[in-house]
């Protein structure tokens, strides 16, 4: 039962292997050390500070929709 949240890459710090991802208007710094070739606009599944893998925009939208249906995203995040 370990949920992972999709976020869109909005900034990349290659030297530090870090990226800034956004879920709606909320931003978070995550390590991209475990995922290769991260680019601006990619969607990443994130968990406890690490990006786990890239997913498509469609998969990200579907996942966020499910979280929304479950009432797990506050309105201001969407």
């Amino acid at each position, binding site marked *: 039962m*370990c*949920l*992972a949240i999709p976020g869109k890459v909005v900034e990349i710090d290659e030297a530090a292997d870090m990226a800034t991802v956004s879920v709606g208007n*909320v931003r*978070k710094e995550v390590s991209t050390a475990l995922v290769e070739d991260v680019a601006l606009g990619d969607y990443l599944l994130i968990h406890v500070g690490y990006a786990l893998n890239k997913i498509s925009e469609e998969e990200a939208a579907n*996942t966020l929709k499910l979280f929304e249906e479950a009432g*797990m995203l506050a309105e201001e*995040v969407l």
Partner: protein
Amino acid sequence: MGNAVGNIEGRLDIGLQLSEGIVTGVDIRSSRPLQTPRIFIGKRVEELLQTLPLLYSVCGTAQAHAAVSACEQALGLAEPESTHGAREALVWLETAKEHLWRVLLEWPGLLGLPPATTGVGEVMQLIQRFRVALFPQGRPFMPGARPVAAGDGTAETVIAEFDRLLREQVFGLPPAQWLELEDVAGLLRWAEDNASPAARMLQRVHDNGWSGLGCCPVGALPRLETPFLLEQLQRADAQRFIAAPQLAGECRETTPFTRALGHPLVAAVVAADGSGLLARLTARLVELAGIPGRLRALGLSQEETADADPAREPVLPAGNGIAQVEAARGLLVHRVVLQEERIARYQILAPTEWNFHPDGVLAEGLKGLQADSMDDLHQQAALLINAIDPCVGYELRIEQD
């Protein structure tokens, strides 16, 4: 990220009551979102199986295996031995990734060292290659999936690369050879002679006198009987069981430690120091070292056998499926109820709810910890929590009388 997103994952709040240097009370509260599976109600099996691994992507393979097995049962479909073995092999490789996450990313942090990210990244690449090698048509966790009958050697290559990764980054010798260690003295000699994060962790725990830390009498969770699970999960208040499960009124533990109890090295550490920190760390390493062998046995024996009997157990009502899968952190149970090809009920019972039960193995292990300073107590508690391993973040509070 703000609280709204933090709330999606949930977390554990762990409070310790300290009196004269001894932990006298433990308060564990979880905000893990256990109601999430209700979002699958009304959806078709295919939709469930496509989205569930994305939602639960940390242990997405184990989740997907439990989901497809439950659905196949509910649909009255058999899971052939070859499919079951190949799916199980994929779950074991995911378990390896989770163990490497602890050993290479988190253990160095607990030792004050930088994390070693390359090993986890590499195993994540190997997982993708192994999956394609076993299921070139894709979608291994859809009803009716069949693994490749005769591979092109890629699966064997992946296993060999994984074996090498473990040798270079964890054990310093072939994992199968490391598994031949049989006593505590040999284990500690290995820890002393190696510089890997795994060896340094064992050495630190031993040097600090923390080998027996958190030893407590909570018993191992056995494989659960399907009628027991059905009875618990079909009740109107099943959510109470899912949030704080017990067996015959007792808390139980389901972790890599309970899975590895039968291994001679783990048994030797338990005999010397009890079911404490050293035994738990050793069990994680024992399980990790055994995974290449498991993959060879499971993933590559794909001779097609006659289809098994439909997997739905006779005790289950029509349209029901209950699957049990050994995931990285312990036993994972899924139950599905199908009505007219749509999901009418979906439930997930996860290992974290057994292990982090308010009276469970972590709570019992934390009780009685003794420390000279708050910093020392923080370190001890963090090591024990990491060893039992929740799948979410946690916050530790210590209150002094």
